[in-house]
């Protein structure tokens, strides 16, 4: 059962330093072999100052920078084993590069509960030197009805 008192609540902020090898590792795991993610010179030829983080890198910042998110989910009443990812949304304001120190802040934007399922939306704001670089929203669904 969800603890509805968490709706609108912000969790502690965290920092994450973007490591070059994590950018490459994520691209390798996806199977994305675009050389802009692996070769700094190739990235520069394409107008980047270094290899840029790929589109879904926010997930790395979130899980590696704030692994406590799993405890937070349990705290608010999410059954991790029954959790399904419903949607993910990114807004890109600035490219993210190796060496960037990113500050992340996660909040519970919305909660809904019915006899069949719980729905929770998290919003994460990522900043670098107080400038927002990325905004992410994740919606999860937890099936609660009898199977």
């Amino acid at each position, binding site marked *: 059962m969800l603890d509805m008192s968490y709706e609108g609540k912000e969790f502690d902020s965290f920092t994450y330093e973007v490591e070059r090898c994590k950018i490459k590792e994520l691209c*390798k795991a*996806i*199977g994305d072999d*675009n050389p802009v993610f692996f070769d700094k010179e190739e990235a520069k030829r394409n107008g980047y100052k270094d290899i*840029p983080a790929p589109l879904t890198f926010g*997930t790395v910042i979130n899980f590696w920078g704030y692994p406590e998110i799993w405890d937070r989910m349990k705290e608010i009443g999410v059954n991790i084993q029954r959790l399904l990812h419903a949607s993910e949304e990114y807004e890109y304001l600035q490219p993210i590069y190796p060496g960037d120190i990113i500050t992340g802040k996660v909040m519970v934007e919305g909660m809904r509960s019915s006899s069949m399922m719980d729905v929770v939306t998290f919003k994460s704001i990522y900043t670098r030197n107080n400038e927002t670089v990325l905004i992410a929203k994740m919606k999860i669904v937890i099936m609660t009805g009898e199977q």
Partner: protein
Amino acid sequence: MALPNYDSINEGYELPLLTKESIPKVQLVKYAGASGDFNQIHTVEEYAKQAGLDGIIVHGMLVMGILGQMISDWAGIKNITKYSVNFKAITKPGDTLTAKGTVNRKYQDEKGKFADCKLQVEDQKGEVKVTGKCTVKFE
């Protein structure tokens, strides 16, 4: 690959397809480590079964990553301003995924020239795994 000229694309323009043949189980292990998402429904068969699934399932974010590869190959990371997906169906190891996209609206305003694209990932049977959209800014 370079983003085509704004004037050369029309509504209905199809983005180049990207296909990933038969996602191997080991890719889920790699993706778990890379992303830090260690939910065991993606890597441990017994755990997945206990959770009521037939077996381990592909991380939704890996599918989003593959679709993201298709759009960033086409448009370049720096030209993408928004990207979102809805997860429609479970993807299993062994599924072959095809990422597709179509320009469904192009427009100009005080901030520049843009195209909104409609996106989709489907498997070998044509089942839709993910629908999505992205906005691309033209220089």
